């Protein structure tokens, strides 16, 4: 029976049996990891029937009618399989998360009917009542391009987030005017000098000068003119694997502070012509306060660029144990996210890979290395038959532990005819069951969340300001999905929106740590992560049944550290660097 046959109508008997099996697998992993965790696995089994929250598919209700176009006309061109991304952003600074969906265009000479229809980006403004309005045209974003990913960041520190769209060909930088419109500043910013097949990107302040710099991943050297013929049956053309193409270096652009960028790829040590990068996440793996980068590569070793605090980076992925799989093989790294999922104060890593390769779930060690605990945690086996793309750590049930959401989907729509693996695959939500055990509860979340999809982009954001994080999913050549998170457990949360003054205005790179009753949690304000996507910048901490926290410590990218005490749960706080903290009414 395929999972597609389940959904809302699943019987309670079947539900409990599946939950039991899932719990069994998770308990096996947890037992391997920590032999004394049997009681924990029992706990996981008993409560798997009620994860404490449900998802509601509110896409149509919210007025989101976006459909991705990959331009496929039968030519089986490589980029068709990869797009596209999405983002939660508050472009109008009204405190409500808006939505940006990236689209691709038809290939030159292969315009599909109707010819009048454009395949531009889509910007949806939050109407603050659960619905959105498509403001693409009025915002000046109805521009056709073969878009792939998106990175949102206020690079000019004017308080309004700007948008970089990565493309096949020329990437586009859209500057937010602060008046509800964007202007294309690609040429003026100096980014027009580089063209490639770009994928994920992120804004971060690598030199901590208060200005967001830009990191862009590139996949392979591909252009429609140099497409390679690949075939599974020797006759018909099929999509090529990346081995068929030469790699392409990632780019690092330094923000000069005058609206222009300098390409410092070579001088920063980022340059690597063998890379075939798809995902990037920022982290501070050595906890020196300087942002490092983790880049996932397809069929090439992943890169962990250690920030050497002098404008240069050094790849430390092999030493840190994250370049290869535990078998020493370079996997097909797709999406990536980082998060302190064990509340150890150190950031762990999730990397989605090709099917049969399993998602990598890395726990950080004290020595700065990583250990892949996917198998022990229960994530490994559950993801073995999946081809993962977007992935995010977020506290889905607000219990104080980061959970992991993953969207899956194969790249080849004929795959089911080759080896039985599905093209559309169900997304997964691995609930963190404490002590390193994760349990996929996607089937229990209603809303058709676990219906198979050709998933690509994934982002979280609290669009309805109810204190929990909702999910935005994009699919390849298909619709986008907005899943509203509806809590039923009564768990509470506390949210922080940071505004940098000396630091970059988005406070990207700031780390937050909360303390309560002997426990603590840590987060980082980060751009990028997932796959081609960007989640909201405000930070959410799940608190379970707690109604307040003892302390909040913010370490700003500028080096300033601030501490705030005795903060009530159930609301969002705006923290302005060196200027204090102010609660808002609710979230």
């Amino acid at each position, binding site marked *: 029976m395929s999972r597609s046959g389940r959904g809302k109508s699943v019987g309670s008997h079947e539900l409990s049996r599946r939950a039991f099996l899932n719990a069994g697998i998770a308990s096996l992993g947890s037992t391997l990891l920590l032999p004394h965790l049997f009681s924990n696995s029992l706990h996981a089994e008993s409560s798997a029937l009620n994860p404490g929250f449900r998802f509601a598919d509110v896409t149509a209700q919210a007025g989101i009618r976006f459909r991705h176009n990959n331009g496929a006309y039968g030519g089986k061109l490589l980029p068709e399989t990869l797009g596209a991304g999405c983002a939660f952003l508050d472009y109008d600074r009204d405190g409500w998360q808006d939505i940006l969906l990236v689209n691709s265009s038809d290939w030159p000479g292969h315009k599909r009917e109707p010819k009048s229809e454009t395949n531009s980006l889509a910007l949806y403004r939050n109407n603050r009542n659960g619905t959105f309005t498509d403001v693409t045209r009025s915002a000046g974003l109805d521009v056709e391009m073969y878009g792939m990913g998106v990175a949102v960041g206020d690079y000019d520190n004017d308080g309004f987030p700007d948008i970089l769209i990565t493309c096949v060909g020329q990437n586009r930088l859209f500057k937010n005017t602060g008046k509800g419109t964007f202007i294309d500043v690609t040429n003026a910013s100096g980014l027009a000098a580089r063209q490639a097949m770009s994928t994920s990107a992120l804004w971060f302040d690598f030199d901590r000068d208060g200005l967001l710099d830009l990191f862009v991943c590139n996949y392979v050297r591909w252009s429609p003119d140099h497409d390679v013929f690949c075939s599974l049956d020797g006759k018909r053309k099929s999509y090529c694997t990346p081995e068929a193409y030469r790699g392409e270096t990632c780019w690092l652009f330094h923000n000069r502070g005058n609206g222009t960028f300098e390409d410092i790829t070579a001088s920063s040590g980022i340059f690597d012509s063998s890379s075939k990068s798809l995902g990037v996440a920022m982290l501070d793996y050595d906890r020196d306060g300087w942002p490092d980068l983790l880049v996932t590569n397809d069929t090439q070793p992943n890169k962990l660029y250690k920030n050497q605090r002098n404008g240069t980076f050094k*790849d430390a992925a092999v030493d840190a144990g994250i370049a290869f799989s535990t078998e020493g093989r370079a996997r097909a790294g797709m999406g990536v996210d980082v998060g302190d999922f064990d509340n150890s104060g150190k950031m762990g890593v999730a990397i989605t890979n090709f099917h049969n390769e399993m998602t990598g779930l890395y726990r950080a060690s004290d020595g700065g290395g990583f250990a892949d605990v996917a198998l022990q945690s229960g994530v490994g086996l559950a993801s073995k038959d999946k081809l993962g793309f977007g992935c995010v750590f977020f506290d889905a049930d607000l219990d104080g532990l980061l959970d992991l959401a993953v969207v899956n989907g194969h790249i080849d729509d004929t795959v089911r005819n080759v080896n039985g693996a599905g093209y559309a695959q169900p997304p997964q939500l691995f609930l963190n069951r404490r002590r390193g055990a994760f349990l996929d509860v996607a089937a229990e979340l209603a809303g058709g969340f676990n219906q198979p999809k050709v998933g690509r982009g994934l982002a979280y954001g609290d669009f309805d300001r109810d204190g929990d994080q909702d999910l935005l999913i994009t699919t390849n050549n298909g619709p986008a999905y907005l899943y509203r998170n509806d809590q039923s457990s009564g768990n509470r949360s506390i949210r922080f929106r940071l505004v940098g003054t000396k630091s970059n205005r988005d406070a990207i790179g700031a780390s937050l740590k909360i303390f309560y009753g002997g426990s603590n949690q840590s987060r980082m304000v980060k751009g990028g992560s997932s796959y081609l996507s960007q989640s909201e910048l405000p930070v959410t901490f799940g608190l379970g049944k707690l109604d307040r926290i003892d302390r909040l410590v913010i370490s700003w990218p500028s080096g300033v550290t601030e501490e705030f005490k005795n903060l009530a749960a159930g609301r969002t706080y705006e923290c302005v660097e060196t200027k204090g903290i102010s609660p808002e009414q609710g979230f």
Partner: protein
Amino acid sequence: MLRSPDSKLRAPKTPSRGLFLGLIITLAAVISYSGYITRQISGLRELQNNLVDRNRKDSLQLLRIQNDLNSLGLAMRDMLDNDEPYPLTAWSAQFERVHTDLDDALRREQQLAPMNRTVAQEQYLENSVSQFWDAANRIFVLAGNSRQDEARTQIRISLRARQEAMSTVVSRLLVQNNEGEEQAADRIAQIYGRVQRQVYLFLTATLLAILFTSLYLIRSNRQLFARLATLSEQRSELAQKLISTQESTLRHISRELHDEFGQILTAVGAMLTRAGKHAPEGSALRAELREVCEIAQDSLEKVRSLSQALHPVMLEETGLESTLDWYLPVLERQAGLHVFYEKSGISFPIDGESAIHVYRVVQEALNNVTRHSGVTQAWLRLQFLEDALVVEVEDHGKGFESGVTKQGIGLVAMRERAELLGGDIEFAHPEKGSTGTTVRLRAQRERLVSHG
């Protein structure tokens, strides 16, 4: 004399020594074989650790080196393509990464290098790598000094050639490792073949040892059983001789008592009677003589009774049935046991020799009832069958004590007497589940009438 004159009945040679020897040989064979196998396995393990595993790990490192060299080749290709907007120095970080990994791989490879690696080979690889990085550094210096074209020329004419040469060396080492693995596989196959042959030999030897030991055991068992049979026969013969001797002695004493003492006492009685007649009527002497005469008569009765008890002369004179007719009332009178006596069938004469054995069996059985059964009634049945006589003595008393396997001399004697009669005897309960005892003697008619 009980000593057998037959020399064949002397104790046969004990098999223990042979068996002990066989055990020692078997144990020695097992120990030797275990030692041999352990040595072979150690050799195999050593071969695998030192050669196969080491070769495999070395090959992995060589593949890593090859991969690094390949990365360098691709990087040089990109550098020569000159289609990147970056200066050649952009590749220095990439080269540095490969350099670090290559150094690590080479260090590990040197530790794992197989025994057959020559110093010259190691030296050559080391020098090639060293020269490659020297050349690469010079090229990056050239590139750093804005002499990009010159640097590219150096890559084209020198650095690529060095990389290709190193790649060839590594390929050759991989082939060498492969050959080494093939040789090791051959040696392993030889060891397995040798061990397999030894296993067959050991199995054959073990089977032979088991076969010979089994044959030896069978032969020894046969001898033992034969000796047991002889001993049993001797014992039976001895018992029967003892019984015959006993009966002969008893018969002799009985006759002596009856004939000699009986005659004497009869004569004494007659003489005393006559003497009494001579004494005056009513005299004291006459009274005393009468008293003595009565004593003599009483003694005569006792002697006759004892004589009958020791060996009923009636058996020879009037036969078994008459003797039993006489004996049973005596027993009832003496022991208080009432015996219900039944006869069936057409009786046939039984000679004296046989009759005494039947009589003794009945006597012993009834004595047992008297002594052990705790009841005062018993049944005696004589069945004259066409070809046999069956005698049953039954009581409903306590019966045999269960679990008592040691037989008394009386039971043994009854069995021996049955043997002497060419029949059999069985001891059982009267009915299934009841208490009491039935002694059943069955004797062949032809033996009863022709014995002696």
